[in-house]
C-alpha cells in the first residue's frame, strides 16, 4: 500500500561526504541572486510607501526618503475603510477557495473515480470556464446577476469565481483521481460504504494535501481579481481591496505614495496567507496519488 496519509517526512541532509566541493555554494549564490532580483520591485514599493507626496514628486520614485512619512498609510487605512475591504476580500477569497475546492472535488469524483461516460468532453467543457477571456463575460454576467437579484452582492462574485477556479481544480483533481488506487475503493465497498461515504472517508483524506494546494491557489488568485469585482461590486460596502486601490487613481491625477502605501498593506494579508500555508504547498500537488 503506497498511499501515504501523512506528509512525506522531512529528509535529513545527506551525510557529509556529499558536502564536498564549492559548486553547491556557487549554486546557492546564483539562486539567491536570482531571488533578490525578484524582490527588487518590492524594495521600490517599500521605499515609496513611506515617502511624503512632496518628497516623491521632487525626488522621484528612486530617491531615498528624507523623512519617515506614515500619513499615506493612515490616509489609505481610513479613507478607503481598509478593515471593511479586508473583510470583503477575505470573505470572497475564502469562500471561493472553500467552495471551489468542494465543487472541484465533487466534479472530479464523478469524473476520476466514477469514470462517467464522456468525461474527456466534460472536463473540456468545464475547462472552458478557464479559457473564456473575462471581458467577454462581463455584459452577460451583469444581466444574469441583475435578473436574479445578485448584482452588487458579494455572493455574485463568490459564485462566479467558484466556477472559474473550479475549472482548474476539476481538471487537476480528475487527473489525480484517475490514478487513485482501486484497491482502496474496493476495500471500502466491501465494508458496505456508499459513494458518499467513500468520497469523504477514503478519497478526501488521501487528497487532502492536494486540496490544500488548490485552496491556496484559489485564495490568492481570487484575492487579486480586479475586472469582475469592479463591475459587480459598485457599493463601497461590498468592494474588495484591489478595487479600493484603484479608487486612489483619479481621472488625471494619481496619488503615488498613498497608492504605494495602500498596495503594501494590501499585500500583507496575501503574503501572510502564503507564508502560513507554504508548508502545505511542499506536500505536493498530486500527493494523494503517490506511487
Amino acid at each position: 500500500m503506497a498511499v501515504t496519509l501523512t506528509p512525506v517526512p522531512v529528509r535529513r541532509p545527506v551525510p557529509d561526504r556529499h558536502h564536498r566541493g564549492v559548486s553547491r555554494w556557487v549554486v546557492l549564490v546564483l539562486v539567491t541572486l536570482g531571488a533578490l532580483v525578484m524582490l527588487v520591485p518590492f524594495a521600490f514599493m517599500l521605499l515609496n510607501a513611506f515617502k511624503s507626496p512632496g518628497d516623491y514628486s521632487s525626488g522621484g520614485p528612486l530617491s531615498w526618503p528624507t523623512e519617515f512619512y506614515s500619513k499615506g498609510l493612515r490616509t489609505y487605512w481610513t479613507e478607503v475603510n481598509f478593515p471593511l475591504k479586508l473583510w470583503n476580500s477575505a470573505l470572497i477569497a475564502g469562500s471561493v477557495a472553500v467552495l471551489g475546492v468542494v465543487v472541484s472535488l465533487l466534479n472530479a469524483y464523478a469524473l476520476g473515480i466514477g469514470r462517467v461516460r464522456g468525461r474527456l468532453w466534460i472536463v473540456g467543457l468545464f475547462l472552458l470556464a478557464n479559457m473564456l477571456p473575462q471581458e467577454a463575460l462581463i455584459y452577460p454576467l451583469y444581466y444574469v446577476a441583475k435578473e436574479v437579484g445578485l448584482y452588487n452582492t458579494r455572493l455574485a462574485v463568490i459564485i462566479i469565481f467558484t466556477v472559474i477556479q473550479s475549472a482548474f481544480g476539476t481538471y487537476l483533481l480528475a487527473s489525480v483521481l484517475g490514478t487513485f488506487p482501486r484497491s482502496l475503493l474496493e476495500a471500502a465497498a466491501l465494508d458496505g460504504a456508499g459513494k458518499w461515504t467513500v468520497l469523504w472517508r477514503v478519497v478526501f483524506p488521501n487528497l487532502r494535501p492536494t486540496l490544500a494546494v488548490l485552496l491556496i491557489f484559489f485564495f490568492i488568485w481570487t484575492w487579486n481579481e480586479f475586472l469582475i469585482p469592479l463591475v459587480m461590486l459598485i457599493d463601497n460596502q461590498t468592494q474588495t481591496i484591489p478595487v479600493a486601490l484603484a479608487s486612489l487613481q483619479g481621472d488625471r491625477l494619481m496619488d503615488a505614495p498613498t497608492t504605494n502605501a495602500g498596495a503594501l498593506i494590501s499585500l500583507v494579508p496575501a503574503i501572510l496567507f502564503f507564508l502560513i500555508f507554504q508548508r502545505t504547498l511542499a506536500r505536493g500537488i498530486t500527493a494523494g496519488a503517490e506511487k
Partner: protein
Amino acid sequence: MAASETVAATSPTATTPTPRETRRAPRGRKAAYWLYLLPGAVLFVLVIGAPLVGTVYLSLTKWSGIGDPTFVGFDNYQRLLDDDVFWASFRNTVAMIVAMVVVPTVLGLLLASVLFDVIGRRFKPRTAAALRAAFYLPQVLPVVVAGIVWGWILRPDGAFNSLLDAVGLGALRHDWLGDPGTALPAVMAVMIWVQIGYPVVVFMAALQRVDPELYEAAEVDGANWLHRFRAITLPQIRPETFVVALTCTIAALKVFGPIFALTRGGPENATNVPSYFAYYTFFKKLQVGYGSAISTVLTLIIVVVAGVFIWMQARSERRDRGF
C-alpha cells in the same frame, strides 16, 4: 512502483474505460455519479454557459452597452477578418507564450530541481523554502501595482537605466517601454518575473512526490545533478509539467492585466494582445457587438489550442503505456 503508471493515468484523457473497468462498476451504480456533477454543472451553466451563449448572440449585433442591440448578422465577423490590429495582436500572443509558458516552464523546472535537489538537500530545507517564497511573491502582487512599479524601473530615468549607467553600460540607456522595438521584450521580461513563481511552486511540490530513494540510488551510482535531472526529475514530474504548460498557455492567450497596467497595448500596438483589444473595443469604443465577436473568435482559438494540447498529452501518455 512504476513511474510510467503514475504518468500514464494522470490525465483524464488517458483513462478511456477498458472493458475490464466497465465490468467492475455496473451501469446502474455508475449513474449515481452523475449526481456529483450536478452542483458544478448548474453553476457552470449559470456563470459560463448562459453568458457564453449571450456573448455569441451579442457578437451578431451592434450595441453600445445600453438600450436594445440591433441584429446585424455576421457583419462583425466580416469586419474582424479585415482588422489588421486584431491579427497583428496575435503576433504578440506568440511572444506572450514564450514569456509566460516556455521560459517560465523551463526556468521553473531548473529552479525547482536546483532548489529541491541541491539547496534543499545540501543546505537546510528552510533555505529552499525561503527562496521559493521569494520567487512566488510576484504572483501575490496585484497586477495594477506591479504595472506602476515596473513603470518606475523601465522609464527613461528609471532604475534600470541608472543601473546601466552605474556599471558603465550607459550607452545602452533606452526608453524601454516607449520604443516599439524594445517595448515587447521589456513586457516579456516583466511577464517572466510575474509568472515564474507558479511553476516553481508546482514543480517543487511535485518533486516531494518522487521517491527519495531514486535520487539516493542515482547518487550512489555517481550520477551528477544533470544526469539526475534528466533521468529522474523530468520524467517523474511530467504530469505537473503538462498541467503547468496548459494553464500557462491559456493564461498567455488571454493575458490582459499586465498589458493594461504597463503599456495599454502601445506604443503603436507593439504590445497589443487580443484580450486588451477586446477590452478596448468593449469599454473604450463602446462597441459591445464587435467586442463580443473578438472575444468569441479568441475563445474559439483558445479552445482549439487547448484541445490540441490535451490531445497531444493524451497521445504521449498512451505512447508511454505502450499502446
